[in-house]
């Protein structure tokens, strides 16, 4: 059974994934909360190590549903929002919060398939296999999309730095 006790452990990763998908703090909070509400409403049998992949799939489906309903009504755009950027302990000491935020901004420019893939693997930390299951594509597709997504993000960062 999906263990409700352990789900909040994934809150940080889910929020990062949601932010990378939506590009807005408020939308990301809404998305994570709605995802948890949906998942906890209907508990399922999940392998013990498969809960993050399950949550990410639920997050993606919720994101698609929320975008559909947003298209049907007037969309609100936030003019200014504050987000605190953090660099994890143990990460490459050369990484700065500025670079991380620029990388997230570059993700926003990707097409949906590339964005979902890089979010699943690099942001949420799923394996290729888990990402393939979560996004319902082949592992080979994940690998090729991930390669292209990283290349585009790198190009964006280099373009911004030049």
């Amino acid at each position: 059974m999906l263990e409700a006790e352990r789900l909040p452990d994934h809150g940080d990763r889910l929020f990062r994934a949601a932010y990378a998908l939506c590009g807005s703090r408020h939308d990301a909070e809404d998305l994570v909360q709605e995802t948890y509400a949906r998942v906890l409403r209907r508990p399922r049998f999940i392998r013990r190590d498969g809960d993050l992949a399950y949550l990410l799939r639920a997050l993606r489906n919720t994101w698609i549903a929320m975008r559909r309903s947003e298209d049907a009504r007037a969309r609100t755009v936030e003019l200014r929002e504050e987000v605190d950027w953090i660099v994890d302990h143990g990460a490459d000491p050369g990484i700065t919060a500025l670079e991380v935020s620029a990388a997230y901004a570059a993700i926003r420019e990707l097409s949906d398939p590339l964005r979902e893939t890089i979010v699943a693997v690099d942001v949420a930390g799923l394996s290729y296999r888990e990402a393939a299951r979560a996004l319902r594509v082949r592992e080979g597709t994940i690998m090729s999309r991930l390669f292209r997504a990283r290349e585009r993000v790198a190009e964006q960062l280099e373009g911004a730095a030049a």
Partner: protein
Amino acid sequence: MSLEAQLRSQRQQRISGLLAGGGPATPPRLHARIAALQRESPARASPRPTRRLAVAAAASLAAFAVVLVISIGGSAPGGPTLASAALLSARQPTGPSPVHDLRRPALLREHFEGVTYPYWYEQFNWFTAGQRTDNLGGGRIARTVFYRHTHHRIGYTVVSGKPLIAPRSAERRVVGGLEMRGYRDGDRDVVTFVRNGHTCILAGMVHSRGTLFKLAAWNGGGALRP
């Protein structure tokens, strides 16, 4: 490996490391909301098989009681009484908990007949615990949102149609322009008031009726108007 392939591999690793090594900080309030959702989850609080029969029997009895009260106790011909509507808070939720409206922090994303249900968790530590909708007869529909705090549970019921009449003996309090009436009904306390032209009822077993008055009077910083 060619130089070009090596550079490409380094670029790939650099992006992977950047995204794995940092990100936006999760707002603390989101953690609190996830914890609240978790507490309300049926995955956490599903009844054991041995208790299910007892729960089902209790629910059936409550349903029978409501039907009985509705059928014999109406002050308006064919319509429900305040007492029958207040009894809905003793029944089991049949729907999921409404979620917090992040854009209007004092409210839930649930409304009925123009009355939006309040979000009491941050202010009072009452979290949502499901909802139900009932047909009370006489063309009246009632929606109840349940809230929990420690082992107490109350229902916030909104009844469609004209306001129902409170007992004449009910205690009267006015706070911030909101007129409330409170009374005891068996083992439950009831506080009723009118919002947007409809009867709202807070009912449940609480330490003191004052708790219900306090919750009813809370205006959420102006988000809930009398």
